[in-house]
């Protein structure tokens, strides 16, 4: 069983991922935006994160930048594996410069990828990290 944090401003997408992950026996926390996600991280780092990019208050890009800053003080935050769900409105170069450069980044998924496939990726990461 792993702890997974889902960060997305669309409740329907959050619920879908939560349901599928919980159904497979994982513990799921959700956050509506980057700010809420950072708050949630204060209660302990999850094993995996699923991030949306465009969200109100704090976007996925801003959140990862801030997370990098906080990791300097709290090393536990430094290496949380995460995947990014991308829409069509983003420049690949911009995404790469923020996400791919940060530690913990696993891969991009196009938005509306079935949660099962994202979960498969998470399990692969756990296996590689020896969990």
């Amino acid at each position, binding site marked *: 069983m792993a702890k997974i944090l889902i960060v997305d401003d*669309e*409740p*329907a*997408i959050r*619920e*879908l991922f939560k*349901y*599928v992950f919980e*159904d497979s026996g994982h513990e799921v926390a959700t956050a509506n935006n980057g700010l809420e996600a950072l708050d949630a991280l204060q209660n302990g780092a999850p094993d995996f994160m699923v991030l949306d990019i465009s969200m109100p208050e704090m976007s996925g890009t801003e959140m990862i930048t801030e997370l990098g800053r906080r990791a300097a003080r709290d090393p536990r935050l430094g290496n949380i594996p995460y995947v990014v769900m991308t829409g069509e*409105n983003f420049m690949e170069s911009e995404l790469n410069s923020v996400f791919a450069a940060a530690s913990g980044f696993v891969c991009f998924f196009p*938005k*509306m990828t*079935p949660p099962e496939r994202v979960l498969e990726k998470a399990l692969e990461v756990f296996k590689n990290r020896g969990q």
Partner: protein
Amino acid sequence: MRTTLRLHLIILAASLPPILVLLACVPGFKPGYTYAFLIAAAAAVFSAFFSARAILSGMVLPVAKVSSGVRNFIAADYRLEAVIPKQGWPEAKDLISGLNRLMLELSAYRAFHLNQVVEDRAKAQALIETITDGVMLVDDRGQLIYSNQKALNLLCIPKQEPNIALPGCVRQQDFLAALTDIMSSQENNIKAEVEVKSQDETYSIVKNFQVIARQFSLATLKRPGRIIVLRDVTVEKEIESARETLFHMITHDMRAPLTSIQGYAQLMRKSVGASPAAEKGLDIILRSSIRLSGMIEDILNTIKLEHGDMKLSPVVINAGDLCARVFEVHEPLAARKNIKFSLFTPSEKTEFSGDIGLLERVITNLVGNSLKFTPSRGNVALSCRRAGGEVVFSVEDNGPGIPKGKHAEIFKKYAQLDEHKFMGFGLGLAMCKMAVELHKGRIWIESEEGKGSTFAFAVPVK
């Protein structure tokens, strides 16, 4: 609960037959059997009750939850308020889990697509409201489907007006006339110029607009609608007219000194007992000044033809003589370029009525072009003939030819093939077309790239 009662009765009915069979098999009825029978019947009722309870909570109630859950999901417009709690036997739990997954996916998809539609619409709206042209979409009956604020302002249509239809709702009179024509036309692509007069307190302002209408199809429209663009071309028009005025002024003022050059060169050739070298120089001065005055003539003609100011001075023209004159002027040039230049005129007298000065410029331009682009040792032939009610003039060469796609374009003003950039004004052929059309004639080109070109025009005899 009807389902519960039904289940009880079914299980009871299923457990009673063995008891009855047992009774029927017992020979003679003894009093002790009554108790046995009652106990068996009670056991049957008891087991019916508990099996029904088990089936009910294991399968029937979960199925009932599933169906009410799906009904609520549909009633809430495919938004899942809460997942169906998993309960009952493992098969029922699997069913509920799968269904929850499907409903969650459906509501997520719905949210995703709605967001996308809203975003796409916002993008399109931002673009359309930002551009300075008025833009409208109308259906085949003229009903407005979409427009930007600019278009409504230009046509003086209040935004709150429901069911806006074109041209009926247009309050701006100048646009009303143009749009009435456009909406009644069946053509695919229409361009119209509209002069819009408006009056404020002190000035009356005239603005020029170009109205462009093009057919387009939407999946929801049975027949094609139209996209209509209203473009303010006032500044372009002003620039164009300023350029033309400047052109006109320059060329007009160039004529006088040119006439002096020509006159004095002719005078010198006659009066000065010149040496062969001076003679040659004077010839070049004369030829060049004749060419220059031809060019000036072309510019002035183009401007006059375009503005509709050109008045024809028709006389009876002998087609052969006209060709011979142009031929004679160009012969030395052809000889210098080592081009075989030939003339074919009909043996019988071919006469028609036209403006001799203008038509001479047309033939001069066509011959001049051919001689300019045909390489050394090539052939150029000028001919004229009578064909039906027309006189046809043609200039044929075996030069580089003109690509098929450019045949219509080269008759437009300032049009030049890329490879001929900066080799003249690009006015000649435009002037030829307008001059021939003013004679109620037609002009065309037959050409194949690499094989040569034939420029021809026909004017009616009468």
